[in-house]
């Protein structure tokens, strides 16, 4: 066991692979937040007036709110005046029109990440709206999408070109007053993606966005809005990596999904932001509000997430099941190692008749990581025959980590059937022994067992993401148990 423990130490001690800073001149606002900063942001993006007013109102609400403290995480108080709220790659006026015009350093960054845009173009079925810090630098596959009427563009562009859609849906699922970080985001969001799938259209490719936090001390406040009109289908992928640094960075994104009658949205995330060093220094604070609304009959929203990064994750992708027979799903793998803390889960709000939801949450805690599932299943009086099944399993590796479960079930209709199950265990000595005597190395055995533990979630991921997710888990965990 001793030799392997040493190997484990090496593996666990491995430096963050994606840790590098690309030197690009950024035009960055000095730290601090007031109404002038918001006006500057809005002017910079030539936003319509209704957006500016909405931002200002959100900001005023935010000022009256208190920082939430209920999550099972610990961190020093965040100084919101010490954050810079805008950072954009320079040369705003001659923004690149095609990949050729993109700053080679940017492309290099993507190459390092293993997602070069030029290759992405060739990769069948994947369009990329890459967000580098806060301004979109390249959007591909637009033509192909435009042919079927799909709108996939930066949010700022959507505000200019489709103000009626933005006005109708922005903030309709996550209102500015929803919570502290959503209010902050509504006030200062800088960029994000907008997707609209017209009636009856099956989006011909997987849509994806790669987020990346780059400039030092720049909080990133993304805002994503996806609207799937009647009978449409879209699968959206989001993946994240960030460079290494010493100060904690705040990321407070908002994602809103709207699914109309018979529409389906599948939203997949692989999150691999810098988790901080072994002592938990540095690392991203990921305080995200994600929510979808099934507005019409038989609408379906499915969230799949693999959370391996960030120092602190605070994230509850939720579904409002309004339409009759609508379906909500949540599949999650959350891994915490070293001093990472995750408080994640979902909310399924059953409002319409015959609505159903499934929650599968797999938490893995290693090192001194703290992993909490926090979920709400709420059945209101009108939700006849609501059905929910929740399963939350935790795997513990190491005697200093923690696994916690905070499920809330609120039922006001007698026809509801709600089931919640949770289990906690560690990898059994006997399981390891079995694998070892079949000739597997301890690492391979652990990796295999962990992958088996997460299989129910991984098989919900699109192919290319599933591969990436398995790799990520491997890197973060291999041999963390002895």
């Amino acid at each position: 066991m001793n030799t392997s423990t040493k190997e484990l130490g090496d593996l666990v001690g491995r430096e963050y692979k994606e840790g590098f800073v690309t030197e690009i001149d950024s035009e960055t606002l000095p730290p601090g937040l007031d109404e002038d900063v918001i006006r500057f942001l809005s002017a910079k993006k030539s936003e319509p007036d209704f957006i500016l007013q909405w931002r200002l109102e959100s900001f005023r609400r935010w000022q009256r709110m208190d920082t939430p403290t209920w999550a099972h995480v610990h961190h020093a108080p965040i100084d919101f005046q010490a954050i810079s709220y805008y950072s954009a790659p320079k040369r705003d006026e001659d923004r690149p029109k095609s990949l050729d015009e993109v700053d080679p350093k940017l492309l290099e960054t993507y190459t390092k990440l293993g997602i070069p845009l030029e290759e992405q173009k060739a990769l069948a079925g994947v369009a990329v709206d890459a967000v580098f810090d806060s301004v979109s630098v390249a959007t591909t596959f637009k033509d192909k999408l435009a042919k079927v009427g799909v709108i996939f563009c930066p949010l700022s562009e959507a505000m200019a070109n489709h103000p009626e859609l933005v006005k109708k849906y922005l903030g309709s699922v996550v209102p500015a007053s929803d919570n502290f970080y959503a209010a902050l985001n509504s006030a200062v969001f800088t960029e994000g993606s907008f997707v609209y799938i017209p009636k009856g259209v099956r989006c011909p490719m997987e849509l994806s966005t790669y987020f990346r936090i780059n400039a030092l001390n720049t909080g990133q406040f993304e805002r994503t809005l996806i609207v799937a009109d009647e009978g449409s289908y879209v699968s959206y992928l989001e993946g994240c990596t960030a460079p290494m640094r010493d100060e904690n960075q705040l990321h407070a994104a908002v994602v809103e999904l709207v699914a109309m009658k018979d529409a389906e949205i599948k939203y997949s995330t692989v999150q691999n932001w810098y988790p901080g060093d072994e002592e938990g220094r540095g690392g991203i604070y990921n305080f995200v509000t994600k929510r979808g609304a099934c507005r019409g009959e038989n609408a379906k929203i499915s969230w799949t997430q693999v959370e391996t990064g960030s120092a602190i994750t605070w994230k509850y992708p939720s579904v409002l099941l309004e339409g009759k027979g609508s379906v909500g799903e949540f599949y999650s793998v959350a891994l915490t190692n070293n001093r990472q803390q995750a408080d994640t889960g979902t909310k399924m709000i059953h409002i319409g008749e015959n609505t159903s939801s499934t929650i599968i949450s797999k938490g893995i805690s290693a090192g001194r990581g703290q992993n909490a599932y926090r979920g709400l299943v709420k059945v209101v009086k009108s939700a006849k025959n609501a059905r929910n099944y929740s399963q939350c399993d935790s795997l513990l590796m190491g005697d200093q980590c923690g696994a916690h479960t905070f499920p809330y079930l609120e039922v006001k209709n007698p026809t509801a059937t709600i089931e919640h199950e949770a289990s906690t265990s560690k990898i059994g000595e006997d399981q390891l022994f079995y694998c070892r005597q079949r000739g597997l190395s301890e690492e391979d055995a652990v990796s295999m067992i962990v992958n088996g533990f997460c299989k129910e979630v991984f098989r919900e991921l699109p192919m290319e993401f599933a591969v990436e997710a398995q790799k990520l888990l491997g890197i973060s965990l291999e041999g963390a148990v002895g």
Partner: protein
Amino acid sequence: MSIADASAAAYVTAQKQMLAQLPGGGISSLDAHRAGAVDQLARLGLPSQRDEDWKYTSIRSITKSAFTPAEPGGDCPAAFFNGHEIANLNALRLVFVDGFFAPALSDHSDLPRGLHIGGMAQGLRDDGARLAAHLGTALGLIPHGFAAMNSAFVADGACVELEAGLRIDRPIELIFVCGVSGEGLLSLPRNLIRLGVGSQATVIERYLSFDRSRGLNNTLTEIILDEGATLDHCVLQSLGERMFHVGGLFASVAKDATLRSTTVTTSGALVRNDARVNLDGERASVHLDGCYLAFGRSHIDNHTHIAHNHPNGISRETYKGVLGDRGRAVFHGRIVVKPDAQKTDSEQNNQNLLLSEEAEIDTKPQLEIYADDVKCAHGATVGQLDETALFYLVSRGVDRATARRMLTQAFAADVLNGVQCEPLREHLQHLASARLDAALSEQASDQVGDLGRDEAAPVTQ
């Protein structure tokens, strides 16, 4: 001053006025306990729904008018107990009227050597320093305003102490009769149950309403089990529909000791039970069960907190509820496994049966695990009767209404099977069945249109 603080102010004032008459004054540890508690009550007030632990339970119905602390000497006729006997129990009995010990109504002659039972007030007067040393030890940090209110007074209650090695078969029955002296009374029983090394006992706490008076029962029971002791404990609440009950059970279970506690709540306007069990030694174990039947406008809230502080502990927890009419129930089960508590084996289960449109259940099973070599599982369900089981019974010629009643009673009775004392178990099962029978027959006449809808559908022939 917040609303909560204002609602507590009357009780703070009352405590200050009564302090001089409270038993055991001058014993420094008791004085300190009362002073700390009244200070906390004054500072933090009674809980509000902003407290996570009171999120689903509004105490506005309790705070809208202040209750007056009851005084000793309430007159409860002996005939009152005739209809309330537990058949074949043959118990040692202590009766408390509005929270005060009533020796005349009690039966505690022929005590075996090593068993000391009696009233807390008398105990504090006779042997105060020794008793006071135990008060507050199982309670630990006072969790909320009601526990603080109880601790601020410590007027009377039951004291049950077993010396090391004593095992008694005869159950000890503590009967608390509320509302004897009229409307708007606050009774504050403070009970202490201590079992010495290797001893064994059965203690039953029963809470009964004298009549239909409105009142608040704020009770706190501390249980201290020494090494290898075994306590079978049962709390039975059958209170009037205008009665409020806030009950605390705080236990410290030592090495190899076992606590089995079952809480059965069949009525009451608002019932809140807090059970906090600390497993304070290796191989300590706890079985915490509960059965709550929330009908009419009852609101029943069960909060449990089991802390595994040492290795090899075992906890089993099953709470089952049946809700009808406008009944509301809350279950919050928290299990914490501390870093040292390796090889902990813990299971928790909460099952609920909803029978009416207006009923509501909020359940929150919660695990916090800080050790890696543990086996912990929990589950919660909300649903209706199993259709296949119903079909089976109907196919055997049982009519649907009877089949429903049988299954509902079986659902509730299941959790009572763990009660060791046979006469008590039979009493509880009978009580639950009778309560369900009454509630279901009312429901059947009220809500044929809803729950009886499948009766109208012709069975496929």
